[in-house]
């Protein structure tokens, strides 16, 4: 089924219910559907092919998503934070396409071959045109709903293909149609080109929860919007949550209307989530794990799991604060070893997933196997009760003398040290072992010594997991959605090591 139907159902049944924006001047479902219809009619004559969105969050995003849905054309939101050259290269790969571009970003992409550029302001004006609003869309390509370019932290970005059936299956199996209370509102601060930014629009519309978009995230604007817009639900990536908590604490603000806060898109430090639970005891926390290729969330650690974990003395139950919970109903999940064999509880391997929302496809290449299983390239394990623990990307595993070492658990141990603010553990080239465990530490006020840190790790993990070298820095490189740029760090370490050797 098509994603456009999700909005049609909402607009038919509840045309006057608020869909987007503020209580005072927001847009209802009838208006959203009318704008999407007009937007579709207008885009159809501007250019052929994929509908590209290059701009900040705002009402134009949901309108453009549903307009492309009505035209049955793929929707491709692009990362406006990329350098101009990379952005133009990515945009050229969407051709033939018509691109809705924020007015001030137009000069950055002018002259891209095969792409019809239209200003966001012109698109927004067309969506209000009475003639266009009465025009029935003429569908073109029936199948692809969204093209999302992966963040490309390990190479050239790949275009992940999400078909309508994957997204629609995710929405209708996880959200009750119009199941939200009238006063619910979601603050969306993940950017349009992130899978969570797309799924938030679809689940918000289908569930009847008003969507408020934050054009660009800062912890201050997030807290202000949450207060002013009477926000009840929100999703944050881990780095955002830490910064939001700083602001809340500094302002003694407790967000009494906030009911649920979900987080995902990266590893959540235990200290941050414990602090969040302490500062916001009335809020339901949800840890969601998913990938672009799986149409967003595939497993959740729910509010009850969080509360049981913090209240428990049992280390296994308490440890679940570091888990991503259990798979969604209808999804199958398996841990497999290096030769494809299913692994028992407690053993680490690659996470495989199968289900109707799992797309597992890039433009021109299917990566799902014949039985429907998708290899996530994430390393993880299941506990005896089926809770999933993610250790990190398989590509990041350190191979030291034939032993596979996941940086994640070493990072968790080091981050728990009172003198450590942030940490990354990576594999550095080593003549004897192939790779050695190297730690990059962002210290708090007084930096701990390497010996102190090694003792700390050795007391908690096997000795082969103890870092052999330490480097101290004032910050680590992250991308804007909170992903640690390990490749960048690895290159920098290799460069600084060879400089040192040359100097010696």
């Amino acid at each position: 089924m098509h994603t456009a139907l999700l909005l049609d159902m909402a607009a038919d049944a509840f045309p006057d219910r608020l869909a987007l924006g503020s209580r005072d001047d927001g847009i209802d479902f009838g208006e959203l559907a009318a704008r999407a219809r007009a937007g579709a009619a207008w885009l159809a004559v501007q250019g052929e092919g994929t509908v590209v969105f290059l701009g900040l969050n705002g009402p134009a995003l949901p309108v453009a998503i549903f307009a492309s849905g009505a035209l049955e054309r793929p929707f491709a939101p692009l990362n406006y934070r990329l350098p101009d050259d990379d952005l133009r290269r990515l945009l050229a790969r969407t051709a033939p396409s018509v691109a809705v571009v924020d007015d001030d970003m137009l000069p950055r992409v002018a002259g891209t071959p095969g792409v019809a550029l239209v200003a966001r302001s012109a698109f927004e004006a067309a969506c209000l045109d009475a003639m266009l609003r009465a025009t029935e869309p003429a569908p073109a390509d029936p199948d692809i709903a969204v093209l999302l370019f992966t963040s490309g932290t390990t190479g050239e970005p790949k275009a992940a293909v999400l078909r309508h059936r994957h997204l629609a299956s995710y929405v209708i199996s996880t959200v009750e149609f119009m199941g939200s209370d009238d006063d619910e509102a979601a603050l969306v601060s993940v950017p349009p080109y992130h899978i969570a930014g797309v799924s938030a629009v679809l689940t918000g519309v289908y569930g009847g929860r008003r969507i408020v978009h934050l054009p660009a995230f800062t912890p201050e604007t997030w807290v202000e919007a949450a207060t002013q817009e009477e926000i009840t639900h929100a999703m944050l990536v881990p780095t955002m949550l830490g910064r939001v908590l700083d602001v809340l604490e500094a302002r003694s603000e407790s967000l009494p209307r906030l009911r649920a806060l979900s987080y995902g898109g990266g590893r959540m430090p235990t200290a941050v989530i414990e602090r969040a639970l302490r500062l916001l005891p009335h809020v339901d926390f949800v840890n969601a794990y998913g990938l672009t290729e799986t149409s967003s969330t595939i497993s959740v650690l729910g509010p009850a799991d969080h509360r049981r974990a913090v209240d428990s003395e049992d280390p296994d139950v308490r440890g679940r604060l570091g888990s991503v919970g259990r798979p969604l109903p209808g999804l199958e999940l398996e841990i497999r070893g290096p030769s494809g064999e299913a692994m028992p509880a407690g053993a680490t391997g690659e996470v495989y997933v199968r289900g109707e929302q799992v797309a597992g496809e890039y433009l021109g290449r299917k990566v799902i196997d014949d039985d429907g299983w998708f290899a996530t390239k994430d390393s993880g394990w299941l506990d005896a009760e089926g809770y999933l623990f993610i250790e990190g990307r398989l590509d990041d595993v350190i191979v030291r003398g034939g032993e596979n070492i996941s940086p994640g658990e070493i990072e968790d141990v080091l981050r728990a040290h009172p003198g450590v603010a942030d940490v990354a553990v990576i594999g550095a080239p080593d003549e004897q072992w192939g790779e050695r465990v190297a730690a990059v530490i962002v210290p708090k006020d007084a930096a701990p010594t390497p010996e102190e840190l090694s003792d700390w790790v050795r007391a908690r993990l096997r000795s082969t997991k103890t870092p052999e070298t330490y480097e101290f820095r004032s910050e680590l490189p992250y991308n804007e959605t909170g992903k640690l740029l390990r490749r960048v760090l690895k290159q920098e370490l290799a460069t600084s090591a060879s400089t040192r050797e040359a100097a010696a």
Partner: protein
Amino acid sequence: MDLKPGSRWKSSVCDAEVVVVRPPSTAGVLACGGHPMTPHAAERPAGLALSPDHAAGSVLGKRYTDAESGLETLCSKAGAGALSFDGRFLVVKEAKKLPASD
């Protein structure tokens, strides 16, 4: 009757509409209000009336399933007729309430 996933059907006797989410494992007739449903784009057959035994209604946004064949449909428009497959009434699939994650 080709009940392909994503195919849309409308009732021949009331306002109800459905979309097929999961196809049945066996061929059969999807009906609403006691009469076979009509493809979404086709004309409704004339002269049919809602059967009183099939008038329990269908509710917008609910998923209706037939356990025997595995057929699952989503009601995309409410109507007075009840949904059935090969004479068996479809039942509402109660979704497990999940916490919002995005």
